């Protein structure tokens, strides 16, 4: 579970996040929607402890990212939008590196790596250096590394960008399965169709503020999510 309370972050005079508050519950797939520069990546980086924020609290499974960053990070996994991994490493070495940092036992990492690599159709490439991979392949490796330690909270920034249709389908299946197992999935996206079909709840962010949040039915009413989003954007 993620609890975000009154989070504010400024860059100079610009408020990148302005009093942002919402919760993401266990078993939920939650999408953060917004235009470029709305504050999605800033919020995700704040949740993951990549950068600091000025005010407010962020709790992941009850642990504060400010007060207990290591404990908090143990609960979650992060898949960045631009999967700049350690290019000189082989894919398998990168996965093992992440697993070592998360202290994952041998049997669990082996079982999960094989399972997700096969599912994402990349098991034959694990011994290749990451620098030889395409964007989509890197994204898959980042996802396998994130899932190998069985996080209870999965945070992804634009996870579907650069993936082929089969990989997008597989990723959605993985997310559904995790949510069914009671885990928390939180991601940002531009692809409203995917958000509409996949998510139980959404938040729309604009200019660093949450302008709409709730279950999919609450947010869209009898309209499409795209229409709601565009209406909110034109309100400015």
């Amino acid at each position, binding site marked *: 579970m993620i609890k975000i309370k009154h989070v504010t972050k400024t860059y100079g005079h610009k408020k990148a996040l302005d009093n942002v508050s919402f919760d993401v519950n266990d078993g939920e797939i939650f999408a953060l929607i917004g235009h470029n520069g709305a504050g999605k990546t800033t919020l995700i980086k704040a949740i993951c402890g990549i950068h600091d924020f000025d005010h407010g609290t962020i709790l992941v499974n009850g642990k504060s990212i400010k007060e207990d960053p290591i404990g908090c990070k143990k609960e979650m996994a*992060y898949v*960045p939008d631009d999967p700049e991994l350690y290019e000189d490493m082989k894919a398998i070495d990168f996965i093992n590196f992440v697993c070592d940092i998360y202290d994952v036992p041998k049997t669990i*990492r*082996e079982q999960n790596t094989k399972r997700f690599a096969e599912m994402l159709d990349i098991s034959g490439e694990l011994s290749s250096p990451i620098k030889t991979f395409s964007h989509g392949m890197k994204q898959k490796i980042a996802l396998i590394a994130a899932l190998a330690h069985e996080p209870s909270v999965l945070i992804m920034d634009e996870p579907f960008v650069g993936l082929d249709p089969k990989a997008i389908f597989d990723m959605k299946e993985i997310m559904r399965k995790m949510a069914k197992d009671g885990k928390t999935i939180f991601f940002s996206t531009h692809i409203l169709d995917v958000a509409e079909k996949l998510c139980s709840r959404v938040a729309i962010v604009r200019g660093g503020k949450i302008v709409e949040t709730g279950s999919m039915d609450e947010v869209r009413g009898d309209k499409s999510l795209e229409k709601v989003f565009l209406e909110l954007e034109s309100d400015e």
Partner: protein
Amino acid sequence: MNKLIPILKATMAEGIQLFNYRARTERSRRLMPFLLATLIGTCMLFSASAMTLEFKEDGVAPTATLSLYVIITAIIIIMEGIYKSGDLLFSPRDNDLLLSMPIEKSTIVFARIIKFYAFEMLYCLIFLLPAILAYAINVETDFFFWLTSITMLLLVPIVPITISCIIGLISSIISAKFKRRTFLQVLISFFFLFVFAIMILAFNTTSEFDGSSVAAFSDKIANFYYPASAFVDLVVNFNIWQYLIFIAVNLVVFAVTVAFIGRFYFQTVTNLSAVKQAEHASIKYDFTKHSQTFAMVKKELTKYFNTPVLLMNTAIGLVLFAVAVGALCFNYDGLMASLISSLEDFPLTAEELYFYLPSAAFAMVAFASLMTFITTTMISLEGKAFNMLKSMPISGKKVIMTKVLAAMILIIPVTAIGSIVMAIRFNFSILNTVLVLMAVVVMPLVTELIGILIDLKYARFDAESDAVVVKQSAGVLVSTFLGLGMVLVTISLAFAIVFIAGQTASLIIMDSTFAIVAAFLYFVIAARGEKKYTKLVA
């Protein structure tokens, strides 16, 4: 031309940014160490040039100094450029973007080489400018001297850069054909460096360092290296035609190089980025669990051995150390005889020199350790992957200390083996051996702790290639000058104490001082490093 200027602006701005802070208000603070370091270096070499000019009292023409510093600048640019040119020319991260645009390949090459040139100008400012100023102080000069000197200052990097770029091209073309490209690039760069070093040694520079040898060396240079001879000729007797020919030769060399590299550029970039996949038949993956420290150190070592420019940049001190140990152990008598005969007033006999070998070993360890700042770039080289590392459950302090540990793992085996070999060959006492081995540990510890603090302060994650981080960042510049200063102070202090309090006392005092400094730096990192680390975002 209308396309060239925006490309130049874009590529240059990216490079210059590495010296700046993001916030404009912090800019001057950020630039200050860079300016300070340049100032110190320039002053240092200005004095060196002034001292060299004193040789004129021994009958050396002042112009000999000028040609000497032209060749010193050229040698440094070539040796430096050999291993970074391939990376700078062919592997920048904006290659895909530029190649997708309607721009001539030669325009891209031109922009890359100009950027290379701009940074190599730094060496002209540090080495050649002081020599020119010292000459002007010692000799009456006229307008034509300044015209020639300023022109020379601008043109000196061209020939060395041309040589470096051609070598970079050869290295990239050959290595692109193989799967183990990095290893090959290192090997080829070392080969050219070795060939180049042999060529320099062929000038027989080991003769006595007096006035006549400087003059003889300069004469040899002037005969061999056209820019140096042309410069001297123009300073002595300015001739407008010779001046124009001098400019034309340099510009033609530059244009031909751009055209030549442009011809192979696209194919080389394509080959370098071609995917060479591993064989997948019956692969058995290893899932053995390791500690966080092991995983981090392994990651750092993988990065180190896969980054030719970093490897070459930091291995030079260690290679020189190994060569010096080998030379001392295998040809001690010859070296000592040469040293004593070359310095007329040398105060020590061969037997006394033998006694002071533990201090010499300490000095060699100091040189190798204090000049090898590996950690200065370790955070910056994380690039955008740094964000992912920060999202993982590992403390900033642990990340920092594992980087220091990895650097020490790279340095200590070389200096430890060298010291032990010297201790055995020259029968050091057990106490002196232990003290030299203590230096082997504490010195790189201090260097790498300072290095990581510098990178925490100056870290930038947006460099267009690893070569830019390793060769052209503020942190590297600061650490280079700091290393030079530390070597000078440490060795001078160690030998001063030897003559006051004795050799063992000197080693104890120096080791203890470094241990105290290391402990202090550790506490600084423990107290402030985590905070600095937390604030860094890629």
